[in-house]
């Protein structure tokens, strides 16, 4: 046993010497593995980031929320034309629902429109302006970096006030002096009363509150769209996640009554839930994951083939050296061990360099996605590079080990 350890130690030292002696070749050999490990670790880091980002984005909307809507988010059982033929939800229905509902913490109607918003020279095109009422803020987890949400009075009076998402505020007011200034939409002046804190989740795109603005729904109906041109969505916040099912049952009951549906008629509205959204996200992250690992796995495999190739060349080129080593007493397993550990060390070095690059890349990714390199992907990188090294060194090392010393010595 002690002898065996000694041989491993000496084999590693010999390999290290050989690697140092052939620096350029060793570096070229590692390139494949550097790129492979870099890709794998960056990939898993990015996927993790996307995942976290989705979760954060969703929870910024409020995880105990229900959305009573004409449209169904995920239900694929109902054909889209049937969804289209449903009646729009109206403010009248919202008022009836609000009156009847006992369980929700807060309810608010919303309707969106896309408009261009301007302040002096700056403008943001085609952003989502959400019309709602003062209760809306209670249905979300949104915080303010400056100012406040519009109040009961302002929303009931359909006043010209607006709350900006952080991105919009940044674009319109680079100096951060949004509150109390007036912006213009379609020639109408609106006073900024609040700016939301950054949510920082780009994956939600336009639906990220960062890229939205909020105004009283009455003002929206008056100047930008008409109530009967579209449907409203009723945001419903349950007191907690345990009560969400009860809130949903109640909502379905009230809405059926409000709409006068008979017992044998199906619902002509949907009650949407974040849970469905999370499920969808998991599905798409899963697909990205599989595709990502397939592609990066491929690049690692190509790297491994490259290493095997170079190891074969190296063995051929060092035939004479192998002959010398055999002549002075190296056994088959010594030569085998030397070349396998050479390839393993080279790959391990490559793995570490790849990891280093991946860490730098992660710093860049971190600008867009909330993520850091996970311990498991570090271990993964090391194990993968070690295995790749052993795997791709095996055949070349065997070729070297079984060389005939007489032929090898004669090789020029």
């Amino acid at each position, binding site marked *: 046993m002690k*002898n065996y350890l*000694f*041989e491993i130690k*000496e084999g590693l030292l*010999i390999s290290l*010497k*050989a690697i140092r*002696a*052939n620096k350029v070749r060793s570096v070229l050999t590692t390139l494949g593995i550097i790129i492979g490990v870099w890709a794998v670790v960056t990939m898993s880091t990015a996927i993790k980031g996307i995942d976290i980002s989705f979760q954060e984005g969703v929870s910024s909307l409020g995880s105990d929320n229900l959305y009573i809507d004409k449209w169904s988010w995920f239900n694929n059982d109902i054909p889209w034309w049937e969804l289209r033929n449903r009646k729009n939800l109206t403010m009248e229905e919202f008022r009836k629902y609000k009156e009847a509902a006992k369980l929700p913490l807060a309810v608010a109607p919303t309707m969106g429109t896309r408009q261009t918003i301007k302040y002096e020279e700056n403008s943001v095109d085609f952003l989502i302006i959400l019309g709602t009422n003062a209760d809306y803020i209670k249905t979300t987890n949104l915080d303010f970096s400056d100012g406040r949400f519009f109040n009961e009075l302002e929303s009931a009076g359909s006043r010209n006030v607006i709350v900006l998402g952080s991105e919009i505020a940044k674009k319109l007011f680079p100096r951060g002096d949004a509150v109390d200034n007036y912006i213009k939409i379609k020639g109408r002046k609106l006073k900024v009363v609040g700016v939301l804190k950054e949510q920082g989740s780009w994956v939600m795109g336009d639906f990220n509150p960062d890229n939205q603005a909020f105004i009283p729904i009455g003002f929206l109906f008056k100047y930008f769209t008409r109530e009967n041109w579209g449907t409203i969505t009723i945001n419903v916040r349950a007191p907690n996640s345990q009560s969400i099912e009860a809130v949903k049952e109640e909502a379905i009951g009230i809405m059926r009554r409000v709409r006068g549906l008979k017992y044998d008629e199906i619902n002509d509205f949907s009650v949407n839930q974040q849970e469905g959204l999370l499920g969808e996200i998991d599905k798409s992250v899963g697909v990205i994951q599989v595709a990502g690992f397939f592609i990066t796995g491929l690049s690692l495999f190509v790297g491994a083939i490259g290493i095997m190739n170079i190891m074969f060349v190296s063995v051929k080129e060092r035939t*004479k*050296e192998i*002959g*010398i*080593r*055999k*002549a*002075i*007493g*190296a*056994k*088959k*397993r*010594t030569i085998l061990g030397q070349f396998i550990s050479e390839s393993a060390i080279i790959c391990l070095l490559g793995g570490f360099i790849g990891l280093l690059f991946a860490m730098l890349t992660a710093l860049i990714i971190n600008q867009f996605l909330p993520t850091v390199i996970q311990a498991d992907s570090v271990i993964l990188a090391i194990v993968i590079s070690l295995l790749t090294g052993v795997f791709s060194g095996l055949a070349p090392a065997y070729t070297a080990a079984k060389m005939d*010393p*007489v032929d090898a*010595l004669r090789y020029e």
Partner: protein
Amino acid sequence: MNINIINIERVAKIYQVGSEEVHALADVSLKINENEYVAIMGPSGSGKSTLMNILGCLDTPTRGLYEFTGVSVSNMSDNELAEIRNKKIGFVFQTFNLLPRSDALHNVELPLIYAGMPNAKRKERARLALEKVGLADRVDHKPNELSGGQRQRVAIARALVTDPAIILADEPTGNLDTKTGEDIMTLFAELNKQGNTIILVTHEEYIAKHAERIIRIRDGLIESDTRISGRIIPNGDSMLAP
């Protein structure tokens, strides 16, 4: 007194080239004792290289018996042969065959590494061997920083370091100029005087005459095996440490 080191009886080496059998060695019997200084001579194609490979345990005979230090090696496995080469045979080659990117010390140390000797002890031994061939001040030089004669002396140090039963030198002066070659032959003569058994393979009459016995090979057979009367005592500069 006359301890036998090499005893080969009716050894043949046959290569299959296409459908033809080539008898590189046809039928060779030979004994070499301890502390002998033997030259093996023959033109190229005579089978002297084949004989050297077999004597050096780099190759095994097709048939016949080979006893090395009293042990039959004719049927040994590759690994057993490697161990014999490592512990009991010191090779000196025409082209030196040093590892080009390792320094002199590591080159000399290598057989001891394969023998499993601990680091400190083998460094000490390697240094001593280099000192013995007059290269104490060149231990950290790489082969390309050394002259031909110095390289060959590193190779001789490598051959000596394991304290082998024989030193097998294959045209050791073939790549050296006359003066340097003479120095190397002086070194061999002194090593022989100190009790080492030396087998010299050469095709040069003059070099062969440094030995005390010449075995001539032709067409895979021993043509003659004679003790030398007019042996050359080399007059090169001695560099063997006393």
